[in-house]
């Protein structure tokens, strides 16, 4: 049976990279005693896949991984057993069975929400909301994207689904929903580069705190429609809910 697990990553665990988080979970699952399925062959590995890697330095309330088990305890019990094996900075918040004919989180992830705040003095576009407004009114926003081989011009505007400025405890926070996944993917850092260029300021390497809040699957009927999304925890999962929060 396939299981979708949602977890938070916070505190000092932001310094643990994606591959090491995977290794951490592989060992945690072994410690928890969950009856995970292994691949065949001389070097068997656990059937486990993550929805979307989270960059070093970012925190998240909405990370997902799918695993396959031979058998599972009650979701509440499984959640408890997993959390017993976590360290400070990783918490499992949701554990759900996937439907029979389901797709992996990695293949269906289509969007991600982020909360971006300023570590130091707020940048101009945080204080002057008109900048963001104008930015979003642009039809195309071309930026340079460096790959290993070449530098390409990419239009990132279609990958910004929404963006707005909010105040949380009197501090300005930029909330965005960006394309995520294998076909289209926009890293929040790239959006910040574009915004900084647009606002005419420099982006310092550590100016922003980026926090992912949720990952979504796309349930729009077709390309033309206004996009509609559901969180991965509600996509192709069984109705019975066990939320840890």
């Amino acid at each position, binding site marked *: 049976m396939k299981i979708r697990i949602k977890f938070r990553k916070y505190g*000092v*665990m932001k310094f*643990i990279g994606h591959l090491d988080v995977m*290794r951490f979970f592989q*060992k945690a699952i072994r*410690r928890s005693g969950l009856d995970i399925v292994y691949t065949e062959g001389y070097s*068997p590995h656990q059937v486990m896949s993550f929805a979307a890697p989270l960059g070093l330095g970012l925190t998240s309330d909405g990370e997902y991984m799918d695993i396959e088990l031979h058998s599972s305890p009650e979701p509440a019990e499984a959640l408890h057993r997993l959390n017993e094996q976590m360290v*400070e900075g990783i918490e499992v918040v949701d554990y759900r069975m996937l439907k029979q004919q389901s797709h992996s989180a990695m293949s269906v992830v289509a969007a991600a929400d982020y909360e971006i705040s300023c570590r130091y003095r707020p940048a101009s576009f945080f204080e002057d909301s008109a900048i963001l407004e104008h930015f979003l009114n642009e039809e195309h926003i071309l930026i340079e994207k460096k790959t290993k081989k070449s530098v390409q011009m990419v239009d990132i505007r279609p990958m910004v689904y929404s963006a707005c400025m909010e105040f949380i405890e009197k501090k300005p926070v930029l909330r965005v929903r960006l394309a995520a996944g294998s076909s289209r993917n926009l890293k929040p850092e790239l959006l910040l580069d574009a915004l900084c260029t647009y606002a005419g300021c420099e982006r310092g390497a550590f100016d922003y705190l980026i926090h992912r809040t949720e990952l979504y699957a796309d349930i729009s009927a077709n390309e033309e429609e206004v996009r509609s999304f559901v969180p991965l925890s509600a996509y192709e999962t069984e109705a019975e809910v066990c939320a840890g929060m």
Partner: protein
Amino acid sequence: MRKLALSEELLLQVEKPARYIGNEVNSVMKRKEDVAVRFVMCFPDVYEIGMSHLGIQILYDMFNRWDDIWCERVYSPWPDLDAQMRREHIPLFALESQDPVKAFDFLGITLQYEMCYTNVLQILDLSQIALRAKDRTWDDPIVIGGGPCTYNPEPIAEFFDIFYIGEGETVYRELMDVYIRAKEEGVSREEFLFRASHIPGLYVPSLYEASYDEYGRLTAFTPVREDVPKTVARQVVEDLSAACYPKAPVVPFIKATQDRVVLEILRGCIRGCRFCQAGMVYRPLRERNVEVLKKLAVDMLKNTGHEEISLSSLSSSDYRELSELITFLIENIGSTAVNISLPSLRIDTFSLDVMSKIQDVRKSSLTFAPEAGSQRMRNVINKGLTEEMILEGAGQAFEGGWNKVKLYFMLGLPGETTADLLEIAHLSEKVARRYYEIPKENRNGKCQITASSSFFVPKPFTPFQWAPMNTKKEFLDKAKIVNDEMKRQHNRKSLKYNWHEADLSVLEGVLARGDRKVSSVILRAYEKGCMFDSWSDFFDNQKWMSAFEECGLDPAFYANRERDTGELLPWDFIDIGVSKRFLLNEYERAKQADVTRNCRQGCSGCGAARYKSGVCYENQN
């Protein structure tokens, strides 16, 4: 939530920030208010190397079982962070509490190889602890060293307050109690060190004085006070099965060099190879009870989630219940996708059968360590491996489907001739030839025989402790002789030969048998920027050589000189249990190419029997 010692900006700038944040599974958090002694254990190399070390995991577990002690860890900051810490005057900190090392009661440093000595100074320097022990006050932690290099601690004696000679499981509790009492009584640091010097196995360098003759040779080594012991006796665990062992070792987030459960099945070695320090200083061979090991294996895998378990020892084949242990592991653990790895195993029918069960034959290679090419030379070094045994083992392996063999040799062994060197190539050729004797249809393509040679470094407390080491030129000339001969072999296309870096070996030779004077060179080299010397990217021989020159010391005096057997050696004040008489006798036998039987074939009276344990008493109960 714990507050980190380093800022987020800094952590995101350096390579692998996970090295510095602690928080690992099974790491131990206590409240500093609840403990009497704070101990920080250091492996002076990068985190991934240090976290792979079994000794620290054992001591970390032992200390933290005591309610009144909190033991934490620290490793060498990588040069990228090192530079930032110096620039911003950030003090080095322990991983668990993130508190400055300087605030601790003890800084324990494990000394596993000589090339870490400049890293010891880096640790002290970044911790803002005075580099020389004589300059320290009660504001500094007590700096204590342990591990194999303490069998000649003299080159680094000036940097340590105490050395712990022997196995860590024995007298640390006593030291902690003496420390707690000294603190309660408010005595001076000197008084505490004096008291510590009376605990068996503890060596306080400041309480001893060395004098030298006009050539620089040691003439006397004596305590500065009448009431300080003249010799320091190595500490030995008598019952390994009863000794503490971590059931839940710390599991790093990033991949450590040793990313697996390590099960120490035995300690010591019966073989008595004359070049091998470990084979002498860990005597007698003591086995851990097989039932204890089975339980440990299960518990450790469960508590860590590791996917691999490795047996650790100097020679696993000498564990008498190996077959039972391996069968248990295969039947009870192998089924849960756990890899079993068996290093230091003699290649024979049993081990090949086991290996074919637990690994992919086509991918794995077999390793033999003949150490020398000719039988004469193997007799000189007392390596009880014959050509027949190698060819028989290799032949069986080839017929079992293996086609990769690694052969380890040493160059520069005492009494080595050109004929001995040529035999390295010839032996490699014979192994290859054995492979091609198998009919073409039954073999698996070409074979790959890789011969590697390291340069022999004479070590203290071995029969070769008096022997001269080769110079760099001699080493490289020898490597060339072997390499040329390899190219003349019929199956040369199946043979590969590589050899170690010579400069590093020569320096290791100096540090291994150096005296107190050498500490000025180490300090000078560090001041010139030497660090991470065991990493070829960072090793700078030029700096070291100019440090020797500036300190007026000649590396050849330490490395290349044959010592008179009557000369007082810098490490003679340590009593390892194996007598100097035995070592000397072995040195003489080596010159005659006489083989000495191993401990199970019969006792040769080395002296280790006084520990009343292990192989010395195997058949007497």
